[in-house]
């Protein structure tokens, strides 16, 4: 399976995503330049973390106009997988690939630490290697990660099992204390309605190497390997 990692100006998680895909799971990986229009036959597109366009205007607001986003959106419309991490999640929301938006953290401060999150949907192409209710240790590093959407959208996401991950305590319980950024319902990651786009604020690519302390993010990559789109 071939992974394509988009580099926007200001991306800084592209390198980590590349190494997670190439080193940790040993799949072919390439960088995709934002000014290009060529997805180089990649099966999985990763929109990585970082500060595309310096977060100017609003995180993700300018990157979604980068030339390559035309092809990324078309790739998603075909039902092919797009993994949108952190700033990539913000770009995906701005591009209309996912509903809702990411607001300034409730603390108004950037937060970088390992959090725990619970797997809410263990049947998607990104999460099928996990079991429902599994608690994952995974780093976050963001200033604008408070997921929000209007109540109808939230109700649909919850009702259709499209909340992929939710911040939780190490024991797996949900409370506002464990909600690292104040997201609605503690939402850490969501799926689009077709289930082929995953947006998440935590960084699975930073939790893919035993020497770094946690490998709980590997499941996202292994789930994808289990078989791409029909």
């Amino acid at each position, binding site marked *: 399976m071939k992974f394509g990692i988009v580099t926007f100006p200001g991306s800084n998680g592209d390198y980590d995503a590349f190494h997670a895909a190439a080193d940790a799971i040993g799949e072919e990986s390439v960088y995709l330049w934002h000014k290009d229009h060529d997805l180089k036959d990649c099966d999985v597109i990763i929109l990585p973390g970082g500060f595309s366009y310096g977060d100017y205007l609003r995180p993700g607001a300018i990157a979604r106009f980068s030339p390559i986003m035309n092809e990324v959106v078309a790739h998603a419309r075909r039902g092919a997988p797009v993994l949108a991490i952190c700033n990539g999640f913000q770009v995906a929301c701005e591009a209309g690939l996912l509903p809702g938006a990411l607001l300034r953290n409730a603390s108004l401060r*950037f937060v970088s630490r390992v959090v725990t999150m619970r797997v809410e949907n263990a049947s998607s192409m990104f999460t099928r290697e996990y079991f429902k209710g599994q608690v994952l240790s995974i780093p976050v590093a963001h200033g604008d990660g408070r997921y929000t959407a209007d109540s109808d959208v939230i109700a649909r996401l919850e009702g259709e099992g499209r909340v992929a991950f939710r911040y939780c305590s190490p024991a797996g319980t949900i409370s506002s204390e464990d909600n690292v950024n104040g997201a609605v319902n503690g939402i850490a990651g969501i799926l689009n309605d077709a289930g082929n786009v995953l947006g998440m604020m935590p960084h699975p690519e930073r939790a893919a190497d035993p020497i770094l302390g946690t490998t709980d993010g590997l499941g996202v990559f292994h789930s994808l390997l289990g078989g791409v789109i029909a």
Partner: protein
Amino acid sequence: MSEVLPRPGDPEITPALVREHGLTQSEFERIRNMLGRTPTFTELGIVSALWNEHCSYKHSRNTLRTLPTEGAAVIQGPGENAGVVAIGDGVAIAFKIESHNHPSAIEPYQGAATGVGGILRDVFTMGARPIAMLNSLRFGSLDSARNRYLFAGVVKGIGDYGNSVGVPTVAGEIVFDPAYDGNPLVNAMCVGMLREDELIRAKAEGIGNPILCVGARTGRDGIHGASFASEDLSEASEAKRPRVQVGDPFTEKLLLEASLELIRSGHIVAIQDMGAAGLTSSSAEMAARGDVGVTIDTSRVPVRETGMTPYEILLSESQERMLVVALAGHEQQVREILFKWDLTAEVIGKVIEEPVYRVTEGDRVVAEFPGSALVTECPRYDVPAEEGREAIARRGIDVGATEERAEESDATWTLLQLLAAPTIASKRWAYQQYDSTVRTNTVIGPGGDAAVLRIRGTNRAIALKTDCNGRYVTLDPRVGGRIAVVESARNVACTGARPLAITNCLNFGNPTRPEVFFQFREAVAGIREACIALDTPVTVGNVSFYNESPTGSVHPTPVIGMLGVIDSLEHITRSTFRNVGDAIVLLGDCTDELGGSEYLATIHGAIGGAPPACDLEHERNLITALLEAIRAGVVASAHDCSDGGLAIAVAECIMAERNSMLGADIDLGAWDSLPLRAVLFGEAQGRVIVSSGAADQVLEIAARNGVPARIIGTVTEVGEGLAIRAGGKLLKVGTEQVAAAYHESIPRIMDAAPQSAAIEETEGVTV
């Protein structure tokens, strides 16, 4: 030589104008002799930018020359943008620490952010990919709303800039002491990685090669920033806020990627950051290093404001700009690489054979200096040094006679007070605002003894730490200088690293005061002695003088940035206890030394006595023994024993990682002949707490290396808490209670109390 005439509208050169430029009458005469005429206004500006303390090191250079700078691993010593050392496998590390104190004192957010930006550029202009940032910060007491504002602003500035550029901030230290009221210290360190053959130097070469200005446009910001950093802070400093530059981390990120691509492309011969004193210093320094002439045309520099004079263009400290010397005929390729990253490059001058530094505005020559005189003719001063009476008096205080407070009859009270003291308490509130995991190399991040980063593609890792205890340096600068080095060395050794080389940032007061210059000279001597003893050469450094506010000088604070190498990933060692039942071993000894301690400062509000003795031979043996034990696989954890003493260090070992806490049962009966508080809270040097499942072997290795060592207890379940038997008493406290004091202190202060930019009268500034 060309004819140089004043520009229309230039002010007349008067003694007052010369003074305003921070130049003395004798320095002015020196310029006249160098030129054979009176300088123009533009020339005066150039000299003032280059000969201020910040750029010229005129008071420090003769002293700095005494530092050891050579070693087997050193590839690039002082004189370049950053030092470079080889760590094996063809991999080299470029690193440097630098101050941004004055800007941060009046504009904490931008001051700190641009400090990060500047040091990043110093590292990537060597051809190195930045892989880690550290910072060493000093503030006045958090009891003051102004200091809370400065602390919060600096932390946010560091975070926002480094996070955006995508370089993890992995370690550092933060100290709070009233001595830094009104003059915080903000030192930022950057560490980069390169292949040894990728090194590039900032040396103009090749007659006829074009000089390009790359990156952001030049504006009127930061003019005379370097001169501002070369004077005391005062009430009037607030009016100099416009001298603080404004950072743009997004442009920096593009510049970083473009610069590395340029360097690897082979189209350029030299690259240098336009940092302090901007275009002036970068172009003059590159020319002097290459021993060639240069000519610069200010009318070709891309500007973002109209009507800028050559004077303003030359002295602007607009951020995120680089000066590049390209190979003649390769201009287009250089432009293409920059264009890819949405940046521009303009040819603004060239390397010439004629040995002059010439600035033109179109065809008109507005400044010209012979040869590299601008750099080499800079005056150097040897100023008188004499120890201040206050320091002598403070050192002479018999601190052992300090009467105990009533509460101290319960040592638990003292322990909890110290754990909650902001200098000792967890700094998680701050470092959680820094992305510490991006680039996926961070094995040990903030909060450990030192940060550890694996070096991809090898089986090695590097360890990084900054350190300095300014109280020790105040009380005895030579001993304090030594301790700054050995403590940072112990810190990296605790992670399994052999100390390899240092960078330093020497923060002192006004050097023309004899007591300040004494501190400087002695501290450098102490650093020298320790660096020789540990074989850790100084690869590059930075001096920040004039750290004075109306209330006086800061503690002399020579911050050491230490680099260590871990030769095998299996040797990476953490500071907190790992296994219930492990023996706890103290390497080193307890003494009756309370001088300069955190105990005296926090519990008694006192700074006095002699700092703890520093035996360099013992320190070297300790590090040797510790590393031998780690390599033998008999060390489960290792933690340096420093601020707050043995009791604090043990407490940190059981609860610094709050989601994996343990207990400890400690018996210090072996030192019952010493005063209890000295055993618990004294800061004797040369000590490390090790936990081990094979303590006999640890003791044997220590004995063989001549290091005193003793089993002082056992790691227990978290429910057992912390129990310490000493002086015939039992100190017993729950781990959770200890953890709460340590972890919740700074958040409680910062999240509850208001911050204010207003300068408070109690700080004496308006009096």
